[in-house]
């Protein structure tokens, strides 16, 4: 493979080449480098932009998703015009506009245990920009099994984490991996998801840029990668900490497993069904002046953005507020998409014997789409 730089590339990367410990050799290593970026969202956006700008020659992008309005607050690869388009395809277009000297391969698929090892095998480094625990454990295990370096970053609200896992050590062994740090995931529901918990839009920009920096260091051998250490950043207090990560004798990764099950995530098919009504039926009830109670189990900040005039009882406090929920008439429970409200209904039925609760199918998102477009779909 020809990794020598053309005159156009020499001009483009002049500021890299000027760094004494980086030089022409570092730039040629970037050109020969192969990086798989899993997720092209909040973290993936800065990672991809900086790796492309830096001249990483071969970049793979794994993302099955399409661009949504609510992504644009932080996913700086995309513009308003891209809403509805494939993230991976749009990212490729944007990156080639930034740097045409690259080979970019798009995988419009979920990263699964069926395709994981096949996807990572052609790359030197994997950058984990995923957004859920099952995929994080899968990325980690696939990297360990395939002998790839996993440059990890994660964000929540104001807080970010960065580390370099499975880094080759001088004695031929590998540095700690994600499972040495966290042998098992938190139970579902402890850490709120993006929609509930939120994230400061600039945070993935900061953390993803650090992730890109670590990828570049791993590829070029310049500097000291963040292996065996975990970097923590709290944007709210502007505090940073670096903690030691050690290998655990208990960590054994012998093959890929069922990561949904490992993370305690039960698929909707396995849950007890609850009674449902559609948004059209709810609308009809309202128009007809039907006598029912409407409960909204989202968080207060979500309620403040858009609501259907329901009584606000966030999911976490629903049992404690059961006395506010009527038993002598129909009660419609809703959330953003219908998942939390179904959970609330099961909890109320199990603990208090309610039989009059109806889940609003598709939640406020369906209402915004099918009944009232003036309600923000957030």
């Amino acid at each position: 493979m020809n990794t020598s730089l053309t005159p156009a590339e020499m001009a483009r990367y002049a500021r890299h080449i000027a760094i004494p410990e980086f030089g022409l050799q570092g730039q040629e290593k970037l050109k020969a480098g192969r990086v798989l970026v899993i997720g092209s969202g909040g973290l993936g956006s800065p990672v991809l932009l900086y790796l492309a700008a830096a001249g990483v020659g071969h970049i793979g992008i794994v993302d099955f998703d399409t661009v949504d309005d609510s992504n644009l607050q932080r996913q700086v690869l995309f513009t308003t015009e891209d809403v509805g388009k494939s993230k991976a395809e749009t990212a490729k277009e944007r990156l080639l506009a930034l740097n045409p000297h690259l080979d970019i391969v798009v995988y419009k698929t979920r990263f699964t245990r069926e395709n994981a090892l096949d996807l990572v095998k052609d790359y030197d480094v994997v950058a984990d920009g995923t957004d859920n625990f099952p995929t994080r454990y899968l990325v980690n295990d696939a990297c360990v099994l395939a002998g790839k370096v996993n440059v990890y970053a994660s964000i929540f609200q104001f807080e970010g984490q960065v580390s370099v896992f499975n880094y080759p050590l001088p004695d031929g062994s590998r540095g700690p991996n994600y499972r040495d740090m966290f042998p098992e995931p938190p139970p579902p529901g402890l850490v709120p998801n993006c929609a509930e918990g939120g994230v400061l839009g600039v945070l993935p920009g900061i953390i993803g840029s650090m992730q890109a920096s670590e990828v570049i260091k791993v590829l070029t051998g310049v500097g000291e990668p963040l292996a065996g250490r975990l970097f923590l950043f709290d944007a709210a207090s502007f505090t940073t900490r670096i903690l030691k990560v050690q290998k655990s004798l208990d960590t054994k990764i012998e093959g890929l497993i069922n990561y949904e099950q490992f993370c305690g995530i039960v698929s909707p098919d396995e849950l007890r069904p609850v009674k449902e009504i559609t948004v059209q039926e709810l609308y009809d009830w309202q128009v007809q002046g039907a006598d029912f109670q409407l409960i909204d189990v989202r968080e207060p900040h979500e309620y403040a953005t858009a609501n259907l005039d329901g009584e606000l009882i966030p999911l976490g406090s629903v049992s404690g507020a059961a006395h506010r929920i009527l038993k002598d008439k129909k009660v419609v429970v809703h959330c953003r998409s219908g998942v939390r409200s179904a959970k609330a209904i099961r909890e109320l039925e199990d603990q208090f014997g309610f039989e009059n609760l109806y889940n609003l199918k598709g939640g406020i998102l369906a209402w915004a789409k099918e009944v009232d477009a003036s309600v923000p779909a957030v």
Partner: protein
Amino acid sequence: MAKIIIPTPLRKFTDNTSSFETSGNTVQEAIEQLAQAHSGLERHLFDDNRNIRSFIKVYLGEDDINSLEKGATAVASNAVISIVPAIAGGIN
């Protein structure tokens, strides 16, 4: 007094306070004091056998307490204890 730094995901159980001062002499005592002050934290920090849950890492300074003496690790009066939870960044 030693200080415990509370990570963002757990602050909903601590009225959004980000740190807690403790007089505990060991890490276990310090974390117990925190859980007593904020009862909602209890089930997130300890399992049924009062062990600190494995999806939460506890550090004394920059060291994982598992590489020291775990819960029995002595805490100096100027020590900083960090609770570090796994975060995934989105859906879980």
